[in-house]
């Protein structure tokens, strides 16, 4: 789901040689990148049939599961890194999956669209839900059922006793570390179980 620039930025956060579980791995492009350039291994989890086939086509291990049914397939701390890249906003049980991410992985990395990015704020101020390149959907047919901000996620992480190791924003492929809640279209968090 994520574009190449986001993928490159996320890939830099993943330790070399890590065993990775990529939740909502889409067509497997990020896992492919991690395998080729960072010597990682692991699995993607994906629901969509076409994406599952795309993963198989590019030689990425993929497991077809509905994340809303949980991660019982995977043992505690069985991966070095669990990724949720542009996945959280689609999940009915987003909070449960966040806890599951921290249970299964020693390290969790989450990225999602930051609804507090200033153009979104401006749009809402003008009385309209934002429709942007990052959030291209109309309000009535968006798959983004969890609408949150960079700041909101910090609170949710605290509530679930997650220790945030790094937090920043991504905008145009660059890391935004000053006022990310206002200045970045994508929120990124790296965390572990507290």
């Amino acid at each position, binding site marked *: 789901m994520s574009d190449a620039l986001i993928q490159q930025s996320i890939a830099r956060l993943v330790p070399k040689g890590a065993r990775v579980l990529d939740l909502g791995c889409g067509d497997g492009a990020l896992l492919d990148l991690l395998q080729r350039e960072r010597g990682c291994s692991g699995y993607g989890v994906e629901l969509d*049939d076409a994406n599952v086939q795309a*993963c*198989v*086509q590019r*030689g990425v291990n993929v*497991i077809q599961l509905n994340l809303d049914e949980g991660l019982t*397939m*995977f*043992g505690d701390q069985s991966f070095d890194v669990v990724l949720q890249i542009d996945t959280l906003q689609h999940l009915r049980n987003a909070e449960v999956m966040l806890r599951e991410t921290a249970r299964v992985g020693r390290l969790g990395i989450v990225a999602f669209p930051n609804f507090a990015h200033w153009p979104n704020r401006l749009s809402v101020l003008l009385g309209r839900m934002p429709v942007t390149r990052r959030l291209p959907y109309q309000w009535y047919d968006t798959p983004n059922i969890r609408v949150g901000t960079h700041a909101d996620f910090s609170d949710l992480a605290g509530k679930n006793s997650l220790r945030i190791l790094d937090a920043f924003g991504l905008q145009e492929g660059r890391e935004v570390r000053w006022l990310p809640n206002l200045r970045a279209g994508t929120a990124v968090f790296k965390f572990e179980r507290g």
Partner: protein
Amino acid sequence: MPLQSGGSIRDYSLAFETYGALNADRSNAVLICHALNASHHVAGVYAGQDKSEGWWDNMIGPGKPVDTDRFFVIGVNNLGSCFGSTGPRDINPDTGRVYGADFPVVTVEDWVSAQARLLDALGINQLAAVMGGSLGGMQALSWTLQFPDRVHHAVVIASAPNLTAENIAFNEVARRAIVTDPDFHAGHFYEHGVLPKRGLRIARMVGHITYLSDDVMNEKFGRTLKAPTLPASRGSLPPEGAHPPGGDPAAGGAIRDYLYTTQDVEFQIESYLRYQGDKFSEYFDANTYLLITRALDYFDPARRFGGDLSAALAKATSQFLVVSFTTDWRFSPKRSREIVRALVDNRRDVSYAEIDAPHGHDAFLLDDPRYMGVVRSYFEGIAAERPSPGVAPETTRAGAAP
């Protein structure tokens, strides 16, 4: 050959067919394992014979998901079956009599051992892939445990790591139907010149129910009454304004009254099951049915590991594609996920596709673009890893033609 039961079998033969050509380094062989009632004839048709398509002809052949232009595909009939390999209808060399019920009990592991000997005879040391659906998937899984160094990829479709109590129960109903048929003669019916067809028919009817999903059975047959046939029809017209007893009221026209019979065929589903049973009883061997259902019952690689499938699969080093179908209640997706979980626990390479197909267990034999697509993509990956066979003769040996 020694058998898992402690017994042994000698002077046996295996029927097999091959398709495509072996490449120069003998690295493109794919073994196809069959389920309960299939054979070594997996693809192609026999020249001059109508309706002789192999049982997996939609999956295997030139340009198909398992592409015989790229792979050397081997279909083999298992020991104890009734399609050419040594089975209960053959002569026991120790007694000079037909085996019948004396044919040794064979297991999935025994079949795999025999298949390995076939590969030895063909000069194939390693398989690019072993593939099977249902009971065939169990053989593919067993290959990765018995001969981990000889299998690069295992494709396990609509299968399970063992049977549930319900699965065994259905098998037992089928076996009792056969064994209690007065024509069974304790398995030595050949000497009496009869066949326990009644038992086989019922066994097949029970089996067929478990191959279909409730939804598909309703869609296909619903409560539709069998069209009146000569002896059944009483020539009565439905009363004025009568509602159809079921099915699609819009279909209209052909509404007929119930026959109010307890023994004649009333519903279309009955007719279908009887037809399937009749057809099956004409060609399938009763002792083979007992043997193969028992092999299903006994398969349980985790048994020696206290039920721990992850420990059992630690030996498997090949890469896996596991496929299940959402409406398959005979070997449900839950059972395939157990296999996947055990492989993940062992950090093995595995991909898992759960196809939302409506057809129940039968789906593994049917065309579904998602299912065919994922198998095709997987085999393209395998093909990319190895040299192509060059100009391949289309099909060879057993007379299959495109």
